[in-house]
C-alpha cells in the first residue's frame, strides 16, 4: 500500500510534516511506501493522509495527529477498523465530489516533486501534441475556441493577448507568468505551484510556442518559499528530460525558463509594474498603451498571464477547446477556482464550472457559516473588488453578473463574513491596504486613497460628520477616473459596494455613533444590569484599568470614562449581567 501525506503550505502549517515524520519512523516495519502530495484543497480537514492500494484510494484520513501514526500502521498491517475514528465523513467527501477540477486536476493526487508521476497522468502529452502536430496559429485558434479568459482578475480573452504578442514584430519575445497572487485572502496560485508545478510549466511552454518566445519567467511572490522550491525542482527535472531548454522533445522549439522572486509589493501584480520589478526597478506601473504585447519586458513584445490561466492550457490542448467552452455561461467559459475562507465552515479550494451561484459555493460546498451564524456578505476580488450582500447570493458566477453587483470575479479570493463583521471597518481595512500599497506615481491614487482612509478612520472612531458619505463617493469617482493603473482605478470598489449595500451601517456610525456589528471598539459601550449582577466582583478583578467598582454581593458599575472597551468583563461575567451596545 501507499501512504500519502498532503504537504502543501497549509497542510504543513496544520502539522502535516510532524505526521509524516511519525509515520516515517514506523514504516520500516511494513512493506508499504510513504510519500507526499501537494494541497488537495480541503484545508479545513488538514492534516490529511490518503492510503492507496495500487491506484485506488481506499482510505482518506483527516485531522490526523502524529499520535495517529500507530493506527495507520495497524491498518496497513491488516486491522481494518484501526483508523475508523479519523476517516473522512460522507458529508465532507461531498466537498470534493461537487467540484469539477481542471486547473486543479492533479492537486493532491501526485507528488509534485516527481516528474514521472505527472507524466504518468498524461503530463506533457499536450506539449508533445502541440509541438508535433500544431502550428502556433492552431494553438491560438484552439484557445479562442475554448473561450479561456485571464484568471488574474480582469478576465481578458487569452487568445487575444497571445495573438497580439504573436503578431508583434521582433525576434526577441518573452512569456511571463504572474504568480504574485496579491489579493490577501487568495491562495489558488500557490496551491497550483506547490501541488502541480509541471502543469504550470507545460501551460507556459505551450504559450511560449504560440507567441514565439524563447524565454519564460515566473514572478513568484516572496511570501511563498515552498512554491519557489518546488517550482525550482520541477524546472530542473523538466530540463533533464529535455522538456525545457534547447530543441524541446527533439523539435526546433527552444525555450528557457527561470524564476524571479518578488520582494513584497502588491502593485507588482499589475502587469507593467511587474515588468519594472523584473527589470530590477521600483515596481511602478507604466502608462498603457503601449501594451506589453508591443513593448513589455526590456521593451520587447511580452505576454503575461496568471498561474491559473496557464494551468488550464494543457487540458484544453488535450481535450479540445470546445470541451472547455461546453462548461460555463454565455460570456464566461470553463471553470474557476475560488479560495473560500473567512467565517466559513469548510474553507479551502473550490473549482466549479462558471454559472454556479455564490450560494452553491458558500452553502452547498462550503457548508455555510461557522457556528451557524448569519451570513452577511462575501468579499470577492480583494482590494479591487467588493462585498456582495445576502440578497444577492443567487448571483451566478460569471464575469458580467458579478461585475454588475459592483464587485468583480477577481482572482478567486472569496472571504465570507458574518454579522459580527462591520462593513465600514472592512472598507477601512481595504483602504488602509491600498494606501500603504499605492506606489505613489499618480496623485489620485497616492493622495486620494489617503484622504479616503482618513475619512473612514474618522467614521469608525465615531468622529464621522454629516456629508462624509457623499464626500467619500465623490472621491471614489474621481480616483476611478484619474488613477494611472488598476490599483487606483479599483481601490474605491470596496467603499462603493459597502455604501451601496450597507449604507445604514455608515449612517449608524456617523449619526448615532454606533457600530451595529459591535466590532468598532471606540463605539462600543458596556453596562452592568443591576438586576442580574450578583456582585461576585469577578469583572472588577478582570478589568485591566480598574474601571469597575462595587461592593461584594451588590451590583457593580462601569465608569465609561475609564473603560478601554477591552471586553474582559463582558467575556468573563458568569451571569450575563453585562450588556454590550
Amino acid at each position, binding site marked *: 500500500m501507499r501512504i500519502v501525506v498532503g504537504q502543501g*503550505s*497549509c497542510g*504543513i*502549517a*496544520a502539522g502535516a510534516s510532524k505526521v509524516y515524520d511519525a509515520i516515517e519512523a514506523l514504516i520500516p516495519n511494513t512493506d508499504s511506501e510513504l510519500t507526499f502530495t501537494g494541497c488537495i484543497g480541503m*484545508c*479545513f480537514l*488538514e492534516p490529511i493522509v490518503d492510503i492507496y492500494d495500487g491506484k485506488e484510494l481506499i482510505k482518506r484520513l483527516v485531522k490526523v495527529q502524529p499520535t495517529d501514526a500507530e493506527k495507520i500502521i495497524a491498518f496497513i498491517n491488516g486491522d481494518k477498523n484501526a483508523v475508523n475514528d479519523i476517516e473522512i465523513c460522507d458529508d465532507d467527501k461531498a466537498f470534493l465530489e461537487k467540484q469539477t477540477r481542471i486547473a486543479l486536476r492533479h492537486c493532491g493526487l501526485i507528488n509534485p516533486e516527481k516528474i514521472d508521476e505527472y507524466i504518468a497522468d498524461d503530463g506533457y502529452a499536450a506539449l508533445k501534441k502541440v509541438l508535433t502536430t500544431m502550428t502556433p496559429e492552431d494553438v491560438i485558434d484552439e484557445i479562442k475556441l475554448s473561450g479561456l479568459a485571464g484568471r488574474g482578475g480582469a478576465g481578458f480573452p487569452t487568445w487575444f493577448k497571445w495573438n497580439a504578442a504573436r503578431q508583434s514584430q521582433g525576434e526577441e519575445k518573452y512569456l511571463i507568468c504572474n504568480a504574485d*497572487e*496579491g*489579493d*490577501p*485572502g*487568495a*491562495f489558488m496560485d*500557490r496551491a497550483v505551484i506547490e501541488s502541480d508545478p509541471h502543469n504550470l510549466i507545460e501551460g507556459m511552454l505551450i504559450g511560449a510556442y504560440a507567441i514565439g518566445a524563447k524565454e519564460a519567467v515566473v514572478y513568484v511572490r*516572496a*511570501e*511563498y*518559499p515552498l512554491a519557489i522550491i518546488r517550482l525550482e525542482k520541477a524546472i530542473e527535472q523538466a530540463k533533464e528530460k529535455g522538456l525545457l531548454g534547447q530543441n524541446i522533445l527533439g523539435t526546433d522549439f527552444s525555450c528557457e525558463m527561470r524564476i*524571479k*522572486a*518578488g*520582494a*513584497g*509589493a*502588491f502593485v507588482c501584480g499589475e502587469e507593467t509594474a511587474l515588468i519594472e*520589478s*523584473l*527589470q*530590477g*526597478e*521600483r*515596481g511602478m506601473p507604466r502608462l498603457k498603451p503601449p501594451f506589453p504585447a508591443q513593448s513589455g519586458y*526590456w521593451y520587447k513584445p511580452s505576454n503575461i498571464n496568471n498561474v491559473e490561466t496557464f494551468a488550464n492550457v494543457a487540458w484544453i490542448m488535450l481535450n479540445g477547446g470546445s470541451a472547455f467552452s461546453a462548461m460555463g455561461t454565455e460570456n464566461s467559459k470553463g471553470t474557476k477556482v475560488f*479560495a*473560500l*475562507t*473567512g*467565517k466559513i465552515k469548510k*474553507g*479551502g479550494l473550490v473549482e466549479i464550472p462558471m454559472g454556479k451561484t455564490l450560494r452553491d459555493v458558500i452553502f452547498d460546498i462550503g457548508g455555510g457559516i461557522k457556528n451557524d451564524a448569519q451570513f452577511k456578505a462575501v*468579499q470577492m476580488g*480583494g482590494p479591487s473588488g467588493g462585498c456582495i450582500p445576502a440578497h444577492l447570493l443567487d448571483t451566478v458566477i460569471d464575469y458580467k453578473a458579478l461585475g454588475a453587483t459592483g464587485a468583480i470575479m477577481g482572482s478567486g*479570493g472569496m*472571504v*465570507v*463574513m458574518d454579522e459580527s*463583521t462591520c462593513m465600514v471597518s472592512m472598507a477601512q*481595512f*481595504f483602504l488602509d*491596504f491600498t494606501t500603504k500599497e499605492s*506606489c505613489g506615481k499618480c496623485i489620485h491614487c497616492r493622495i486620494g486613497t489617503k484622504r479616503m482612509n482618513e475619512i473612514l478612520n474618522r467614521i469608525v472612531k465615531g468622529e464621522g460628520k454629516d456629508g462624509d458619505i457623499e464626500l467619500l463617493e465623490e472621491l471614489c469617482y474621481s480616483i476611478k477616473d484619474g488613477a494611472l493603473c488598476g490599483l487606483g482605478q479599483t481601490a474605491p470598489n470596496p467603499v462603493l459596494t459597502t455604501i451601496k449595500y450597507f449604507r445604514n451601517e455608515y449612517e449608524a456610525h456617523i449619526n448615532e455613533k454606533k457600530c451595529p456589528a459591535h466590532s468598532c471598539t471606540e463605539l462600543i459601550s458596556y453596562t452592568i444590569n443591576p438586576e442580574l449582577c450578583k456582585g461576585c466582583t469577578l469583572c472588577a478583578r478582570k478589568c485591566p484599568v480598574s474601571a469597575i467598582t462595587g461592593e461584594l454581593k451588590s451590583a457593580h458599575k462601569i465608569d465609561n470614562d475609564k473603560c478601554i472597551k477591552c471586553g474582559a468583563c463582558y467575556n468573563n461575567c458568569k451571569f450575563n449581567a453585562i450588556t454590550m451596545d
Partner: protein
Amino acid sequence: MDCCCNNSDLSLIMPVLDKYADTKGSLITILQHAQEIYGYLPTDVIYYIADRIGESPAKVMGVATFYSQFRLKPVGKYLIMLCQGTACHVNGSQKIEQAISDELGIADGETSDDGLFTLKNVACLGCCSLSPVMMINGETYGRLTPDKAKEILRTLKEKAKEE
C-alpha cells in the same frame, strides 16, 4: 541616521556581485542575497553594491525602500510575520497583534529589548483557511488564539534561553 561606517564584512557579498553585477536587471536579486547574508541591508553594503553595479546609492536605496521585504535595520533572532490579510482580519488578527504586543512590548516594525523578537505585519501568507496565521522564521502557525500566540512566543523565549 547611521553613516557608511557599519563596518560590514564586504567580502561576504563579493561572490554575489561577481555573479550578478554585470547582468542587467539584477538589483533586486542582489539585495535579496545581501539581506540573506547580513540579516538586513547595512548602509555600507548599499554603497558598495551601488559602486559595483555602477548606479548611484540613491537609486539602490530607492529600490530597497520600495519593497516591504527589505529592512534597513537588524531584526531580532525571531522574525514574526503576522498576517493581516483579509481572511485573517475577519478572523481576528488584531487580537493576535494585541496579544503579541502585550507579551513582548513591541508594535509593528519594532524589535524587543532583548533583541529576540521583531514583529512585522504582512498581507497574506497564503494559508488563509487556517487564519489567523503567523510565520516565525519560516515556520507557519495557524488557527491562532491570543493565548496560543502567547504560548508559542513563551516557548521560543525558553528555547532561546537554553541555547
